[in-house]
């Protein structure tokens, strides 16, 4: 009886769409927490170090509060990451079974990095009163290093899916001569990693700053709140302009390796010399309608030459084109928000440079208050751009996503369950973080009462 129901549902909908949605939801959720895993330890230990150096108890208290929040966010990231490692095999056995030996390797290194991070998150939180300040701050360094290594490894696996290297296929399409090190350092790996790494600092910096901006808007104008806003905002202020430059680098990497993705990002159908940069609009019937166009913008962006030729979607067979509207609008959203965040940072930097203080208006605090959510949206939009822009391929040019998905009956139920579980997880995470914010004595998960 159960089997019949399951099979009916499987046939009715197919597994591809629910599997993609399940992966998108699980990854999209996890990626926010991964950002904190990458960037938060560095920010926390920097604050603690400043506190000790200046003998500033306010900064040390701030660092302790953040360390607790870091513990909660790390726990949420750890458990959601575990489900993801199941889902890689559950949803995409066609990918893992055939190519696991090529691109699975960085995940092993990431496993070690994550292990180190988990150990030292425990040491750092548990050792708050048990270690000397010096030993305590040193215990944070492995967390910082593990965050960098882990981020590189995961992103390099994704970069491999965009630009698969490090193997050959025989006549039957079987992988021969897999070279995992070569696969790990493919053409997209470094650009994608730096882009993601900076994004992690932007997301973390703006999000924490936004919490304290809300506090200051509610009238808490003490040093604690000002420092809580200044430190993460300054981190974001350093990362944001660099990120804009890295954006140019990564756009060129995409142009070189995945012309179809670039064409979709720009909504460009015809191969054009002196191509304009299109913003917004809707793509219908091989044409972008209602878009704002900056003349020569795209050619300048890609070739740094107004007459450079940019290949359009027409170069790619129709069944190998990604869904243009999603990719184009997500890309626009990412860049647009990035530019607005840059303006916010410029405002902050200018006032700080001239007057050594924060801009003296509630509008600045309001802008910072929404910057955190904006940065998360930009990061998710960027991730949608690269993932949807790779479609219909899971391994670019080699394996279609539809061929990698598990044919197991009933797989679609996983999506329903994941939606329910993640909704609950999100609600509880927010409740606990709010509680941590309100009450000084609330312990973090890794601490003892």
């Amino acid at each position, binding site marked *: 009886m159960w089997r019949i129901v399951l099979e009916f549902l499987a046939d009715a909908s197919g597994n591809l769409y629910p599997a993609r949605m399940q992966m998108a939801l699980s990854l999209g959720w996890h990626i926010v927490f991964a950002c904190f895993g990458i960037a938060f330890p560095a920010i926390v230990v920097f604050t603690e170090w400043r506190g000790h150096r200046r003998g500033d108890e306010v900064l040390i208290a701030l660092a302790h509060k953040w360390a607790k929040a870091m513990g909660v966010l790390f726990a949420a990231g750890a458990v959601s990451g575990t489900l993801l490692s*199941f889902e890689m095999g559950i949803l995409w056995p*066609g990918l893992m079974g055939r190519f696991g030996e090529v691109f699975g390797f960085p*995940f092993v290194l990431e496993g070690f990095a994550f292990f*180190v991070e988990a150990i030292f998150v425990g040491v750092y939180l548990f050792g708050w*009163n048990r270690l000397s300040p010096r030993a305590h701050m040193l215990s944070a360094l492995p967390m910082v290093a593990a965050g960098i290594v882990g981020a590189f490894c995961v992103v390099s696996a994704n970069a491999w899916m965009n630009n698969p290297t490090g193997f050959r296929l025989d006549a039957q399409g079987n992988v021969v001569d897999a070279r995992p090190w070569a696969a790990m350092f493919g053409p997209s790996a470094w650009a994608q990693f730096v882009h993601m790494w900076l994004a992690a600092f932007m997301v973390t910096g703006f999000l924490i700053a936004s919490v304290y901006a809300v506090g200051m808007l509610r009238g808490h104008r003490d040093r604690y709140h000002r420092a809580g806003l200044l430190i993460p905002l300054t981190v974001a202020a350093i990362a944001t302009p660099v990120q804009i430059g890295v954006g140019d680098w990564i756009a060129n990497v995409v142009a070189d390796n995945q012309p179809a993705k670039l064409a979709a990002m720009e909504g460009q159908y015809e191969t054009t010399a002196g191509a304009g940069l299109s913003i917004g609009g809707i793509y219908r019937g091989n044409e972008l309608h209602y878009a704002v166009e900056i003349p020569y913008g795209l050619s300048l962006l890609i070739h740094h030459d107004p007459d450079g030729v940019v290949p359009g979607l027409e170069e790619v067979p129709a069944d190998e084109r990604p869904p243009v509207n999603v990719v184009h609008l997500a890309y626009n959203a990412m860049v647009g928000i990035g530019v607005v965040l840059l303006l916010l940072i410029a405002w902050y930097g200018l006032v700080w440079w001239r007057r050594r203080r924060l801009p003296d208006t509630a509008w600045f605090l309001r802008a910072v208050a929404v910057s955190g959510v904006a940065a998360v949206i930009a990061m998710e939009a960027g991730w949608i751009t690269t993932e949807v822009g790779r479609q219909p391929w899971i391994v670019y040019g080699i394996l279609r996503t539809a061929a990698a998905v598990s044919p197991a009956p009933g797989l679609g139920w996983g999506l329903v369950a994941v939606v329910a579980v993640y909704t609950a*997880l999100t609600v509880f995470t927010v409740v606990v973080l709010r509680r941590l914010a309100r009450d000084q004595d*609330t312990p973090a998960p890794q601490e003892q009462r």
Partner: protein
Amino acid sequence: MTLAELVLGAAFAGLLAYALFGGADFGGGVWDLLAGGTERGRRMRDRIERSIGPVWEANHVWLIFVLVVLWTGFSRAFAAAVSTLYIPLTLAGFGMIARGAAFAYRKSVSTPGMRRFFGAAFALSSLLTPFFLGGVVGGVASGRVPPGIAEGDVLSSWVNPTSLLGGTLAVLVCAYLAAVFLCGDARRDGEHDLADAFRSRALVTASVTGAVGLAGIAVLHADAPVLFNGLIGRGLPIVVSSVAAGLGALGLLLTRRYIVARIASALAVTAILIGWAVGQYPCVLVPYLTVDQAATGRSTLVALLIALGAGTLILVPSLTYLYALFQRPVEITGRRER
């Protein structure tokens, strides 16, 4: 020993660590579940929480380690097993989320209702997760996972006698390990009544585990002949040593030598798992795929071994430091708390 066997051995060592450390954490949740009402069970729950709080995340990572080594070194077998057994694995994954989040969060909430809700989620998922993982092992060991993607039956691959046995044994072993570990922790902190309570729980669980193990012989004979023949043939010395270590642990518990009892118990559990591995050797997917058939290319295996070696050099001192720090008392530096 071939390269493939070395890599699989490393993954298996990770699984052992997960069973011993992560298993004890799961078992802690089982005892939390059975600790009684809010008031009556408070001290026991606090004890459990204090014992697993700082280490559960690190202990949990062993599982991720096993998964990534398998999917890199034994891609085909991994894809086959996970796609066929996706239902219990998804449920175990949800169990881990519920358990990890609930345990982490319940400390940070104060209303009794929320605490009880998180506590229940933690305890219940601690029971279900090892059950599903044991069921997965049972499905593979009884030859219900053919190679190929989702080729096996997605229901009967884990709803079967061997899986039921595997799941039950997994829960019992976790509970037993936790009880033995907690005996020593409770006594170290001077909670002698709690130590005695965990001691009697350990003794009862050990007896039940032994009985289920004995009954399991009949189950395996009927349902998993390959494993059964391996166990009574090549694996017999290991089975016998597991029983011996288990009996030794019982004796040590009876005489309240808790620290040595930990070691004996860990040996007994290790021997059970090694028995399983030896019993189904050389098959990875019984009876379809052997270690060497399932293994991926040479350069991948070499890269894995290099990573595993280097990683161990980093991990072992780090873990040692964590566990050593964890045993230290509070406030030795007199650092001021705000």
